[in-house]
């Protein structure tokens, strides 16, 4: 169990011997902040500063070695670094202190880049002053800092993967191969997500469902993976190494196997458009999911079912209309969220969508290709001899361009769509060589070797017409025929009209509306609506909650190969937790001085994590007690305590007061 070790107040402390290291950050700081002056000033005014230096890169190995040498030779017992954001390098300098034999929490990392040099690049003098006061407050902090021990927590050697698209399948497979137990939870009744729908994927031309089946068949061989489809998360608590997650398995109302499923589905009188085929086919109220499903049973869509009893008469006890949802509480060490994306749905009338029958989206067109009967490409009762692809629909939008009321514009590029569209065009050219293909685009982004597809499409007869963002194409209908009018940039924006049989809107990826999951897991969301990682390069699959990882297109648009990499990368990170018996947690939790505690209970009520309770504590009687494993160190309790009995390790009230004083701010009531 977690344990906090703290010096007792009043315990004799050796006098502080502080080393200060101000970073140039290769000009990021030193171009605006006079780093030499900062180092000099704090050394002059404070006798406990033994050494004060300014270095090109504090974080470089050479500089770290210099700090270590100083700590050892000059007997430093406190370290202050003044550089970038602590998010970037606080851990680096703690590790260096540790290597030098100093308690890693007797350090302070002052942020003089994001808080001084960058925001005040127009005022070097002011930036220098501000940086100096930040360093002063860091010195004040370390003077009263006490050595802390990391908390240790047992690690549950299992991982939950939320989302059973190809990303989640890959992550589950990699973890299982590393002998880690995996629970894979998918909300839909089948595995494979969007990839399962794709008629032909770039660059190899495989069917999406084949890609899914191959991954699923490998998963079947792994005894370490338990798959839940038609299931979702209903509660989530705990911390890295020890999350407790409740999964609700939603009822299918079909509980057993039967040889008569086909007949029962046939007998069902309810017919609705099949979502999987974007409404191009129909399904019944009792139906087979279109991808691999667990358990391998059809399900009944109770919202549509008329309870006519037709299926029940054929299936007997295999149908159970009163099947309840079942909750399962699972213990996992970490969680990978790979919940994927949504296709952008154009607003009614956006490029004629929903109003002109010959306007479809790319995902819809993908399904149309699946249902070709070999007699040629047909749509809406007529043969298709020409197609116009309109790129960047719902992507690269200008501010205010969003067509869905209330939603922000999608400023980002969806990454996969140029490649997918050109592959689609090649697919069409292969199947129907006589179909004329026009591409109306802004930039063709066939990055890397996808460029070869672009080259090939041009040779296969695709015609590419560029427009600029200020002159978007217009789709209209005249005499029953769809027309695309485009101001071609190559003709100095002269309008050219293309009558075509089919308009394919190349829609991008948008983030999923997953409010309850996002709130339950406190998932960070970026300005583009996708999940945001801590740092794109340093911590690309992590969130600010340790052990809560993100992967795949839930994080940003990606293609299949890229999302598989992302799934494996998240698996690798999860494995670094799962392959350890014990995890180290930061010791910044609340602690109580029972002698001062008045047992007001205010902290108990305030704690958002339920980490505090009033508990019998020997001679002190019933006083506040903190479960340090559950405490996140937010400090909410500290603020409400009437007697300052509860404080946060690593940021005691006195320490904070000292820091504020050092900043030169007049104290309230002082």
């Amino acid at each position, binding site marked *: 169990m977690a344990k906090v070790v703290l010096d007792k107040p009043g315990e004799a402390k050796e006098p502080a011997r502080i080393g200060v290291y101000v970073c140039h*950050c*290769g*000009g990021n700081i030193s171009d605006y902040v006079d780093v030499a002056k900062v180092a000099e000033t704090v050394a002059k005014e404070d006798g406990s500063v033994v050494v004060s230096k300014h270095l*090109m*890169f504090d*974080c*470089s190995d*050479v500089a770290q070695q210099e700090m270590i040498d100083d700590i050892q030779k000059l007997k430093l017992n406190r370290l202050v670094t003044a550089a*970038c954001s602590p998010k*970037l*390098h606080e851990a*680096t300098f703690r*590790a260096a202190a540790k*290597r030098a034999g100093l308690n890693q929490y007797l350090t302070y990392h002052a942020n003089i880049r994001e808080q001084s040099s960058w925001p005040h690049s127009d005022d070097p003098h002011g930036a220098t002053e501000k940086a100096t006061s930040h360093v002063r407050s860091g010195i004040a902090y370390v003077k009263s800092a006490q050595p802390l021990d990391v908390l240790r927590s047992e690690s549950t*050697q*299992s991982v939950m993967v939320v989302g059973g698209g190809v990303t989640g399948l*890959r992550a589950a497979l*990699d973890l299982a*191969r590393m*002998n880690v137990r995996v629970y894979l939870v998918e909300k839909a009744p089948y595995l494979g997500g969007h990839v399962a729908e794709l008629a032909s994927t770039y660059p190899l031309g495989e069917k999406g469902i084949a*890609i899914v089946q191959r*991954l*699923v068949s490998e998963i*079947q061989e792994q*005894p*370490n993976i338990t*798959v*839940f489809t038609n299931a979702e998360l209903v509660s989530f608590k705990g911390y890295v190494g020890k999350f407790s997650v409740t999964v609700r398995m939603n009822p299918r109302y079909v509980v057993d196997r039967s040889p008569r499923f086909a007949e029962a589905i046939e007998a069902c009188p309810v017919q609705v458009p099949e979502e999987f085929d974007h409404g191009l086919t129909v399904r019944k109220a009792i139906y087979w999911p279109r*991808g*691999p499903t667990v*358990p*391998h049973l059809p399900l009944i869509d109770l919202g549509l079912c008329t309870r006519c009893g037709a299926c029940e008469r054929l299936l007997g006890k295999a149908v159970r209309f009163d099947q309840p949802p*079942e909750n399962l509480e699972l213990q996992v060490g970490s969680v990978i969220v790979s919940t994927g994306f949504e296709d952008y749905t154009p607003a009614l009338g956006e490029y004629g969508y929903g109003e002109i029958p010959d306007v479809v989206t790319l995902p819809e067109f993908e399904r149309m290709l699946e249902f070709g009967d070999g007699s040629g490409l047909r749509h809406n009762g007529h043969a298709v001899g020409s197609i116009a692809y309109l790129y960047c629909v719902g992507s690269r939008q200008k501010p205010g361009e969003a067509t869905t009321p209330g939603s922000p514009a999608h*400023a980002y*590029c969806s*990454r996969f769509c140029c490649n997918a569209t050109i592959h689609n065009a090649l697919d069409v050219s292969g199947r129907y060589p006589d179909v004329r293909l026009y591409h109306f685009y802004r930039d*063709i*982004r066939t*990055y*890397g*070797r*996808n460029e070869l597809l672009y080259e090939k499409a041009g040779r296969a007869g695709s015609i590419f017409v560029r427009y*600029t963002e200020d002159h978007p194409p217009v789709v209209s209908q005249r005499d029953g025929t769809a027309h695309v009018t485009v101001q071609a940039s190559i003709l100095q924006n002269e309008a050219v009209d293309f009558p075509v049989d089919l308009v394919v809107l190349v829609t991008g990826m948008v983030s999923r509306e997953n409010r309850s999951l996002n709130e339950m897991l406190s998932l960070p969301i970026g300005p*583009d609506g996708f999940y945001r990682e801590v740092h794109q*390069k*340093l911590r*690309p699959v992590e969130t600010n909650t340790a052990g809560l990882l993100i992967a795949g297109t839930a994080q*940003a648009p990606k293609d*299949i*190969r890229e999302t*598989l*990499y992302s*799934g*494996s*990368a998240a*698996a*690798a*990170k999860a494995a670094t937790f*799962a392959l*350890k018996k014990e995890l180290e947690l930061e010791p910044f939790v609340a602690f109580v001085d029972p002698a001062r505690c008045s047992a007001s209970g205010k902290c108990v009520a305030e704690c958002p994590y339920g980490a505090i309770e009033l508990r019998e504590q020997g001679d002190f009687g019933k006083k506040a007690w903190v479960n340090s494993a559950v405490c996140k160190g937010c400090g909410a309790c500290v603020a409400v305590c009437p007697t300052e009995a509860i404080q946060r390790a690593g940021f005691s009230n006195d320490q904070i007061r000292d820091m504020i004083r050092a900043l030169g701010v007049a104290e309230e009531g002082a």
Partner: protein
Amino acid sequence: MVEAVTVAPKTAEHYDVLVVGAGIAGMEASLTLGDMGMKVLLVEKSPTIGGRLLLLSKVFPTLDCASCISGTKTSGTSHHPNVTMMTYSEVSEIRRNDKDGSFSLRYVEKPRYIDTALCTGCGECEKACPIILPKETEYGLRGRKAIYIPFDTAVPKKAVLDLDNCIFCGACERVCPADSIDFLQAPREHEAEVGAVILATGFEPFPIEKKESYHYGQFPNVVTSLQMDRLTGPTRPFNSILRPSDGKEPSNIAYALCAGSRDKTVGNLRCSQVCCMYSMKQAQLILGTLPAADVTLYYMDIRAYGKGFEEFYQQTKAMGVKFVRGRVAQVEEEKNGDLTVYHEDTEGPGGKGKSTHDLLVLSVGLLPMRGIEKVFKNATLELDEMGWVKLRDETRSPSETSIDGVFSAGTASGPKDVPDSIAEAASAAAQAVGYVLSWREKTGAAVGIPLPKSMPVPMPQAVEVAAK
């Protein structure tokens, strides 16, 4: 060069995974493996780790300084208890053992002519050495000596002696306070057994001399984007951006994108995937240093496809960088060193244009780093038609190469930006661990590091996986 001398074989070294190349991908893979408890041998052929990223200025799209990103990784790699780092070393031979899926390898530690245990990296030898050569890590913008420390933030910070250019004057030996110079050092060959291999061998910049109409190497004010990255970097050679011919601060800078990419005439049809973004990044940095400068990008398509990239493009446009759609065809030099650029202008009248700039930056593409395929002695590492490592099964397990147990990370398999390289490196690490463990279970071989055994947990209800 001195021939490899076999040192009497010590006990062969044992590791879980060999990682070849210590650029960002190799470091990331090693750190990930090390954090999982795997023992890693990291072999890097140059004298320092960090690769190409460490030499960049800032990195798109967030403009973090490259040193701030790779500094953590170089430092973490060199101190990781599970990572054995061998710099200035080259893998010479890898054989796959079909019996247990492991690999036997040899690698050669090249002589630095420095006893690294003694060298403190003080740099006195550099000062004493009389020989001046172009510095590789600055793409020739600065000089180095025949004995040198590659750069200030080098890991390890140890000198290396370039014997081919040494005149044996002995100056360095006389001044070295640690007495670390050893002219008699010989190459040392090591043998090792590993469970899996990750190739993170990186890329080479396109040799743009091949595109003759751009006159790189002939017109001094035609520079490459790699040189420009150094000129804009925090550890830049001059305290400003200066053009080579006369040291003047340029005020009208042009970028020719797709230099050596998307170009049949130079044998590379592919897009190099990173040049649009790094060119825009440099344009932003130039405007930081020279706010009054005009910067023009000649481009075909702006490929701002990654997370935050399109937003970065819009920001670059808003900063006043001029984008001209059309490829640069021909460059001519004026008497004053300025360059006249003949280019397409697909959106302008007549479809073409001619402009004069005082500096032209060629946004060079990426080519594979060749050679690694030759070290596999009893298996074939397949490459694609350009020489990038071929991925065997990219829609199922995209880190696998044609050899079982050999995985690819970073730009070894194609051009890639930093975030993608990092993701791919972690992916390769995951796959390598899975591979090593599956073989150990098959052969019953002792597991070097305690790892959990398979542990199926009984489920409260029968849950089965079944495909339709």
